């Protein structure tokens, strides 16, 4: 199920599950397994339909993994022996054995979402509903979760309805694709037979590239392998290296200097960062990528100065003002309207309206910050931070859980901010964001930075933890890591 934020995807999914149906007026009928939803008993609805939510953290109820798994079965009044057998079985199936006794607070986002899926699957539902389950995960964890879902569908025949913004991983497995727009169903077909007016932002990367290089093709290419074959079959590749636009030499002045730092949260825990060194130049956009829980956010906190290193050199100059956009923008909203909130950091109304115009949030001024969509919240928080006129902005996952358009607009804001000379450090697990907006990228792995490079070289050197576009261009076009790069390279070469 595709659709922009606010198109009614979540509402539709929730209507299919009796316990979650939103309050309001409904006309028409919903049939689940041949029965009107009103006639379903509570028990039937609980067991027949499983629901996995977007936020893996808030949907976990209990404090340990095994208790979380047992929760649903306890509700059904199963005996201890049965629960023991079933949780054991499901743990083996989903590979949860190593974390079975762990506290849920110590799990990574990917692990949490698999625990959520497993605990829903313990009811053995006929229908599995998933509301943007991968939107907060890094690429690798997302692929792992999707592969579990596909396996359930193929092995157990579970009907799966999944809503997603980025369809790369699931499009090829889908039997049907539906598109919602403003609460209306406007497309309902097999992925291979999607109509031409299907908005391209919901297509997988392969199909988008295909459409861009041959606009008249009817066929939809749903996997990276297909588009690779298409390019190799249809083009005589003569030019295969994407030139890296050498940027005008900026001032090489380092605004941040970090040397051999070590960090851990407390004496009895293991190191989060070891022997890490880093330079950030003035005015650049510096991205740090890494999987969930690799210590990226911790590094930001160290730069910000709220966490102290125990060894190494890092000194924050008092002249440099550093601000941070937190992962959850709600953390910095204190007032009941956006306007009041912005006025609390800056009383210059002209400046506020300038910045709001720049970010495109002028019409949100009278709204409550909590009523905004994820993208709008992110921009409002950014406005608040810009009002403090910082020299360095730290952005913690600025495009997390956003749809295509919100993400694109955040990326263009980041690029525009560069023009005003602000240094930006972004940490993200979204390789696309990093590839599209940064001047330099770094890869944080095993408590240290393992490589730093210009994004095109950086992502084309990686094979697995990289952008889908780079995976498509691997071995065909060197240094092509974004959609426009790949399309540009195709155009440079002759069609056979």
């Amino acid at each position, binding site marked *: 199920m595709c659709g922009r934020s606010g198109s009614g995807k979540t509402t539709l999914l929730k209507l299919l599950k009796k*316990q979650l149906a939103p309050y309001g007026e409904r006309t028409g009928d919903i049939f689940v397994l041949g029965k009107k939803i009103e006639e379903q008993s*509570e028990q039937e609805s609980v067991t027949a339909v499983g629901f996995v939510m977007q936020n893996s953290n808030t*949907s976990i109820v209990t404090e340990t993994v095994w208790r979380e798994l047992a929760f649903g079965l*306890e509700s059904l009044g199963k005996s201890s022996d049965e629960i023991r057998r079933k949780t054991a079985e499901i743990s083996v199936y989903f590979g949860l054995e190593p974390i079975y006794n762990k506290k849920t607070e*110590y799990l990574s986002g990917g692990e949490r979402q698999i625990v959520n899926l497993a605990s829903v699957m313990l009811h053995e539902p006929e229908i599995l509903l998933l509301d943007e389950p991968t939107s907060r995960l890094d690429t690798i964890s997302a692929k792992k979760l999707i592969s579990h879902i596909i396996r359930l569908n193929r092995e157990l025949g579970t009907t799966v309805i999944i809503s997603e913004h980025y369809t790369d991983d699931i499009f090829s497995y889908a039997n049907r694709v539906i598109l919602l727009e403003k609460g209306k169903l406007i497309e309902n077909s097999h992925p291979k037979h999607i109509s031409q007016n299907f908005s391209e932002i919901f297509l997988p990367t392969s199909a988008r590239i295909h459409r861009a290089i041959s606009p008249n093709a009817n066929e939809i290419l749903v996997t990276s392998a297909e588009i690779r074959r298409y390019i190799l079959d249809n083009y005589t590749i003569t030019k295969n290296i994407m030139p890296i636009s050498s940027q005008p030499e900026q001032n090489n002045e380092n605004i941040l200097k970090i040397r051999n730092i070590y960090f851990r949260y407390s004496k009895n825990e293991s190191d989060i960062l070891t022997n890490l060194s880093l330079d950030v130049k003035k005015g650049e956009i510096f991205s740090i990528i890494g999987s969930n829980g690799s210590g990226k956010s911790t590094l930001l906190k160290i730069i*910000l100065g709220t966490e102290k290193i125990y060894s190494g050199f890092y000194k924050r100059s008092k002249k440099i003002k550093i601000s941070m956009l937190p992962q959850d923008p709600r953390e910095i909203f204190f007032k009941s309207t956006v306007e009041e909130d912005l006025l609390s950091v800056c009383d210059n109304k002209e400046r506020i309206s300038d910045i709001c115009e720049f970010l495109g949030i002028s019409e949100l001024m009278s709204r409550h910050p909590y009523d905004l969509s994820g993208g709008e919240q992110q921009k409002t928080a950014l406005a608040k931070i810009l009002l403090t006129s910082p020299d360095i902005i730290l952005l913690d996952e600025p495009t997390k859980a956003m749809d295509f358009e919100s993400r694109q607009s955040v990326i263009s804001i980041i690029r525009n901010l560069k023009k005003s000379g602000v240094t930006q450090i972004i940490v993200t697990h979204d390789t696309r964001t990093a590839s599209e907006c940064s001047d330099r990228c770094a890869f944080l792995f095993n408590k240290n930075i393992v490589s730093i490079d210009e994004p095109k070289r950086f992502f084309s050197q990686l094979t697995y933890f990289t952008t889908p576009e780079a995976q498509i261009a691997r071995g065909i076009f060197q240094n092509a890591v974004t959609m426009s790069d790949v399309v540009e390279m195709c155009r440079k070469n002759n069609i056979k």
Partner: protein
Amino acid sequence: MIIIMQNECAFSKIHPLPLFMWFVSVISFTVLAMNPIIVIISFIGAVAHRILVSKKISVKSIIGNAVFMMMITIINPLFSHHGVTELFFLGGLPVTLEALIFGFFMSIVIQTSILWCLSMSECMTSDKIIHLIGKIFPKIAVLISLILRFIPLMKDKYKRIIDSQTALGEPISYLSAFSVLVSIFLEDSIDTADSMKSRGAELKNRTNYSNFKFSPKDFCFLIFDVIICAVIIISIKKGCLNFSFYPSISEIPTENSACFSYIMFAILAFVPAAVEVIFWTRFVSISSVLNIPMKKQKH
């Protein structure tokens, strides 16, 4: 990934029900029997278990505990003036030998109870408490589990809010940070409630599952505990263990029945230390024979 190494306690492997019964019985005898022999046995048992579990003795904690005990010993005679053996007068009031001894006795009782409670908090983890409650009130068990989940979550969020506020360069207001925390928490709880509802939290006939299995060993331990408790309770009822501090210190009961009770209580009080010793000697001998590197269990 955060792995917290904890002191491993072999005694805690016993099923929560007999374990809880054991702690309750030992602590209540220590506090209620008012018999010096029982208290001293209990004290030695507790110290032995603490040392075996933590595998180190810190001078700092010994001094700290000694000072604490001395304070109680000294304070009691200053306020209690019962007893017949006057040592000296302080501000016109007598300081008696009996009150001093009673103070010392009470200091050991309090110290012993603290040590046993420490062991208990290490052995009776939240899992076990939920298990005991959940058998009778499954819904309360869920509630406890929810709270245990939310406390670390809220602590973490609170710190994040403070950090984000610092990042804005505003003066930190703990009150407004707390109000933001509550708002976020309430909003997120809607999701958690949905997740609970969709997995049937509203259905009747909830059961409670736990990882603990009641084995024959646990049953034997429970019976053993009950028998010893019965023996000691009978001797207390019969007055065999009676001991008084006021007005003058009575003789320590040493009849056969009293001695039998002492031995029984000693067996009870030294169970945790014995379990620890048996576990470690077995474990060490096996690993040294097979040349396996010793691994601490991760919790």
